[in-house]
Structure formats: C-alpha cells, structure tokens
C-alpha cells in the first residue's frame, strides 16, 4: 500500500491538480517505496509504448456516393435559394395567386360605387354634369360681357380722338381766316380740288 498523500497512479497519469501534484513530488523525494512504485509505472508505460501505432492498411475514403449526399429535398431547397431566376418566378407566381384569390373571393354586386345602386350613381353623375354646364354657361356669359365692354371702350376712345382731331383742324382754319391769309387758303383749297 502506498504511503503517498494521493494516489501515485493519479500523479503519474497527471490527473491531480497542481497543488496535489506538488505534494506528491515533495513526498516522493523522501520515500524510496513510492519512488520504486513510480519507476515500475514508468517501465510499464515504456513497455506499452514500445508497441507502436500501425499505419492503416487501407485508407478510408468517402466518395460522392448519393447515400452520403443531402436528401433530394435538401438539394432542391439549396438550389432554389441559390437561383435568383427561380426565386423571381416564385415571387411572381405568389403575386398572381394572390390576385386570383382576391378576384375569386370578392362578392359580386358591390363593385360599383362602393355599394351605391346604379340608378343613384347615374343621378349623381347627371347632377354633376348639370352643375358643370351651369358653371360653364355663367363663365361664357361673363366673358362675352367683358368682351363687349372692352370693344365699347375702345370705340369710344377712338371717337373721342377723332373729335379732338376735327376740333383741332377747325381751330386751325379759324385762326388762318382771322390772320387774313384767306387767298392763300383759297388757292390751297382750289389747288387741292
């Protein structure tokens, strides 16, 4: 029986904690019996390790045999996510399916005017058209009125200008008569005829 504080085999196989290892080391220095036991363990291990490891006679190799590959579903799933074209096609199919589902499941008869009957819709349309026609007629009348006013104003201004010009000519004629230049005036008038 060993007198070591801990099992010498644990010590030799390095299964003790560091402090425990040191305690055994310290003990073995002064214990010939434990030193001899450790020597026997070393010899035993050395003998065991003389039996060397052998090379494997035939390499173990795994070829790409289908049995070792991922399942068909796993491969399809991997290929699916790896293909943008397929992904785009799937997205388009999903949207198409959603549209089709929506069209097929929408109740009939509620497709006009958010639930209003067709007659009411017609009536509202006619009322809106009539109101629009009234607004348009009033606008046209206003434009005509403004046009007439503008024409009248321009005509009045022209008449005023003509009157002013005639008055000016009469004033000039009277002034010539008053200055005695009658003959000149007469000859001018006769020459001009």
């Amino acid at each position: 029986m060993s007198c070591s504080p801990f099992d010498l085999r644990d010590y030799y196989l390095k299964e003790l904690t560091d402090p425990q290892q040191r305690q055994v080391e310290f003990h073995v220095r002064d214990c010939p019996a434990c030193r001899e036991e450790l020597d026997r363990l070393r010899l035993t291990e050395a003998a065991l390790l003389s039996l060397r490891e052998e090379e494997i006679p035939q390499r173990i190799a795994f070829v790409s045999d289908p049995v070792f590959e991922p399942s068909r579903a796993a491969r399809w799933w991997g290929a699916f996510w790896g293909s943008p074209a397929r992904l785009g096609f799937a997205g388009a199919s999903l949207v198409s399916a959603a549209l089709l589902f929506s069209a097929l499941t929408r109740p009939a008869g509620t497709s006009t005017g958010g639930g209003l009957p067709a007659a009411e819709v017609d009536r509202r349309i006619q009322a809106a058209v009539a109101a629009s026609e009234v607004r348009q007629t009033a606008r046209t009348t206003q434009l005509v009125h403004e046009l007439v006013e503008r024409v009248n104003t321009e005509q009045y201004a022209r008449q005023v200008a003509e009157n002013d010009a005639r008055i000016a000519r009469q004033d000039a004629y009277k002034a010539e008569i008053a200055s005695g230049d009658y003959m000149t005036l007469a000859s001018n008038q006769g020459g001009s005829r």
Partner: protein
Amino acid sequence: MIFRAVEDTDLIRQACRGSVESYNLLVSRWEKRVYNYLLRVTRNREDALDLAQDVFLKAYQNLRKLDDPGRFGPWLYRIAHNEAFSLFRKRKPEVDADSVDPGATDTGITVGGSSVFPIELSLAVSSALGRLSPDQREAVTLKIYQGFKFEEMAEILACPVSTVKSRLYTALELLKRELAPLSPRGAS
C-alpha cells in the same frame, strides 16, 4: 508545431452542410488513431479496419446530432467503442472476449493466425494486453495510447470516472506484474 489551416470544427460544420470533401479530410485526420484504438481492443486487423469503416460511416450519418463540434474526438471514440463491443457481443457464442485463452494470444496481434511482431518486448506486451479483459484493455488503450483524460474516458465509455479508474488501475497492476521485470531488457 503543426499548423492546421482548417480546424476540425470547421470541417464538421461543412460536412453537416453536405460537403463530402470536408468529411474525407476529417477522416484522414482521425482514421489512424481510430484504427489503432480498434486494433488494440479487437486485436485483429481485419476487424479493426471493418469497424473503422463502420465507425466513420455512422459518424457521418449522425454528424448533425453532435451538439458540440469541439467534442468530436470523444464522440467518435464513443461510436468506435460501441461498434467494437457490438462485435464482441455478436461473436460471444463462439469467442467470448472475457474468457480468451491467454495461450492463444501469446503470439501477439495476429492476421490469419500468424504473428506480426517478432520483437521479444512487443510479444511480451501483446501477450500481457491479451490477458486483460476487453474493458481493461480499452481503458489502457484510451489512457496510455490515446491520451484521454478520465472525464473524457467516462464520456466515451458511458460510465462513471470511478469505474474508469478501477478498470485502468486493475489493468495497470496486471501489466506491471508482467512487464516491469521485462522492460529493462527490452526497452533499453
């Protein structure tokens, strides 16, 4: 120092995603150790090679069940242990590994009945190992040849650490009795 560009854990993750090449690389790193473990336990090359094939096949099939890729080693040896002892159970009616005649293994590891270790020490070691029970021999193999800690051995063998130590120390006592007087002659 051996530099590994790709760690085992990376290879395991890639293999889980279906990369057979990654798994092949993983196999090449572990096949020698697993083969030698099985060779020590079964003491037969053909059995060891067949079992090694089965071990790596089962490991691949169950790789996704490995929770911690960092524990690949003990997990792989656990499969190897199960495969080896499954073989022992199958052959029990004809060859009970616990009751092997010591004289039948005196010639060391055999292939087709012929000895492959001519050196005296190797014969003595092989003979001494042959006298151990499979459990004891496996404990010696995992500790001395494979360098596992007690905790890892307990995980591989699915038993308490105390059982592991009991098997190993019983085996070491037997081996010490056999080999300690012989080793100064052969090892020096």
